[in-house]
């Protein structure tokens, strides 16, 4: 009796093992059977990686197609021009720092469209090449602290990459633009990550209509030049080091028509040159605008500064304020041309002190500090940054 039972169990195990391997379709086998410029349509089901693509190829999923890694290395590696991956779910990459859902290297003009990336260290890592397009993808890293996650999209050394309509949640940096040139980043959403968009050593990038919210920083721009941020929404970066936009050692940057609200710091500019901040709404931040280090030629023009607890914390004289609307401006427009007669004065001794002694923020807007500010305004102060032509109405207000 015992023997029969053992046989039965043995056969069950054997049969079970068999059935698994029968269902397990290896993606690499399918890829190897194709010729360059083929299009393969994957039917609904799970396909097992990792796989490497070395010739031009289009892979398109029909229905719920899952390409599953084995938690080691990259799930899909693309090493050829003109590869297109569409409408699949990629998951389970390795958990090492370098591992990605999709790695693209030695390749140009790759298209990744409507791909879901889950349980991956990095989402899409592109090393070099030109003309890549990443569109309508969704990604999420492992559920660990952001310092241990990988980036959503990492563009290293790319040219003319287009990142459009992606939805990125809980990664390290949403879109990391690293030594990349001529990059376009449009209509993406990055949430719950470290930096929404991170520029490093890059030139000529344009980011518009992106929504970057509840990250540590919305945009982190460092050591790059000719970057434009237009029409983006940067909100709720509210941790202690939370910045809407943090600019460090940048050259030639234009920030135009963005909404920067409810962040710890709205915009922070450090050691940078030729920065233009034009026509933005900066509202409800704890600090609206701050500057540190040696800046040169910083133009802040025609922005609305509303309900920031500290409007500005400026050090140095490189910041030029012109024709902004400040909601705490106390002057009047007597001539009716929309410009107040008295200049708007930014820094007070109390904010200067707060820059030097951060713990004093504990008393900001407290009765004593308030009295101090009021008394101080009655007397002439030395060096202050002023907006000589403050607007008395917000944009679009009659």
């Amino acid at each position, binding site marked *: 009796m015992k023997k029969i039972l053992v046989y039965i169990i043995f056969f069950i195990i054997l049969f079970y093992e068999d059935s698994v391997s029968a269902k397990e379709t290896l993606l690499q086998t399918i890829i190897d059977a194709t010729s360059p410029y083929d299009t393969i349509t994957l039917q609904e089901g799970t396909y097992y990686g990792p796989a490497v693509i070395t010739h031009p190829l289009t892979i398109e999923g029909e229905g719920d197609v899952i390409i599953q890694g084995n938690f080691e290395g990259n799930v899909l590696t693309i090493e050829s021009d003109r590869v297109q991956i569409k409408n699949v779910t990629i998951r389970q990459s390795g958990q090492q720092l370098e591992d990605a859902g999709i790695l693209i290297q030695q390749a140009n003009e790759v298209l990744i469209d409507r791909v879901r990336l889950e349980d991956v260290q990095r989402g899409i890592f592109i090393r070099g090449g030109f003309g890549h397009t990443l569109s309508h993808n969704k990604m999420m890293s492992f559920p660990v602290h952001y310092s241990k996650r990988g980036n959503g999209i990492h563009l290293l050394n790319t040219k003319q990459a287009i990142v459009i309509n992606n939805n990125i949640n809980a990664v390290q940096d949403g879109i990391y633009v690293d030594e990349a040139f001529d990059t376009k980043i449009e209509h993406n959403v990055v949430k719950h990550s470290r930096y929404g968009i991170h520029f490093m050593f890059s030139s000529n990038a344009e980011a518009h209509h992106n929504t970057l919210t509840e990250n540590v920083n919305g945009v982190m721009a460092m050591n790059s030049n000719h970057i434009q941020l237009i029409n983006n929404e940067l909100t709720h970066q509210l941790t202690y080091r939370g910045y809407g936009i943090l600019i460090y050692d940048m050259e030639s940057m234009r920030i135009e028509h963005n909404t920067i609200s409810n962040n710890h710091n709205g915009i922070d500019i450090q050691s940078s040159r030729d920065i233009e901040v034009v026509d933005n709404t900066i509202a409800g931040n704890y600090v609206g605008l701050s500057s540190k280090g040696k800046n040169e030629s910083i133009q802040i023009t025609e922005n609305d500064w509303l309900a920031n607890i500290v409007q500005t914390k400026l050090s140095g004289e490189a910041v030029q304020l012109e024709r902004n609307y400040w909601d705490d401006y106390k002057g009047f427009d007597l001539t009716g041309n929309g410009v107040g007669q008295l200049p708007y004065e930014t820094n007070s001794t109390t904010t200067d002190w707060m820059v030097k002694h951060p713990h004093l923020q504990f008393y900001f*807007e407290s009765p004593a500090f308030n009295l101090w500010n009021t008394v101080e305004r009655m007397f002439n102060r030395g060096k202050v940054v002023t907006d000589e032509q403050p607007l008395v109405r917000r944009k679009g207000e009659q």
Partner: protein
Amino acid sequence: MSASWMIARYEMKRAFRSRWLLLLFLLFVSLAFISIFMTNATSTAQYDGFTRQMASLLNVSLFILPLMTILIGSMLVAGEKEDGQLLLYRTYPISPTALVIGKWLGLFLPLAVMLTLGYGIALVVLSFLMPVRLGLAVAFYLIALLLITLFLSFSLWVGYRMKSRLHAIGVSLFSWAFFVLFYEFLIIALTFLLPSTQIVMVLTVSVFFNPVEIVRVGSILALESGTFFGPSMYDFTIWATSLFGIIAFVIASLAWILVPLLDSIRLVKKGNHL
């Protein structure tokens, strides 16, 4: 207890007949109108969390309410002493405890009623005219109520401590200025002398020795805007919003109510400057 309730009722009757309570009512109504209107009508109302407008409105309360409470309480008690009424009371079979508690209740209840009416009327009227964020209106009401409660015992104590109305006015004004203004400057000066590792600790402790600070810091924390204090106060915010922090705030508030009352009872017992 019945004795203190008798005193309280007598005090209330006096208060409701007097003109100062009506003036206070007008003050509360204006304060409520300003607070509720400004937090809802300004261009900044759409940005949630703690805004500068809210900070300045909080300041209006922090300036006015302690001043008013300290002056009223201390003047009434000191005046009673000057007129010999307290001496008369002491000839009655009423214990000092009942006397002081009755006095406190007799002042607190009219003030609380007027405050509630003031905020209630402002809220009802304004909600006909504009969309009103009820939560914020209630927050400002509670802040005002807490300020009055915390300062009332202290004001009675000043009254029992001082010889005459004139003394009481002097000390009231000084202590108001101390709590609202000088205290912060003193602590700031102190932090400049201390090694940076002790600053957060000193600032934390300093909150509990001043009712104005308890209310200011407590209300910012209660509005979930603790990051407002900046990164260097991170440890404080985490602690203050934890259970231990909340307990510390409650104990400190109770101490500000009970300790001056207990000492007032002691003073009456002793017959100080009767």
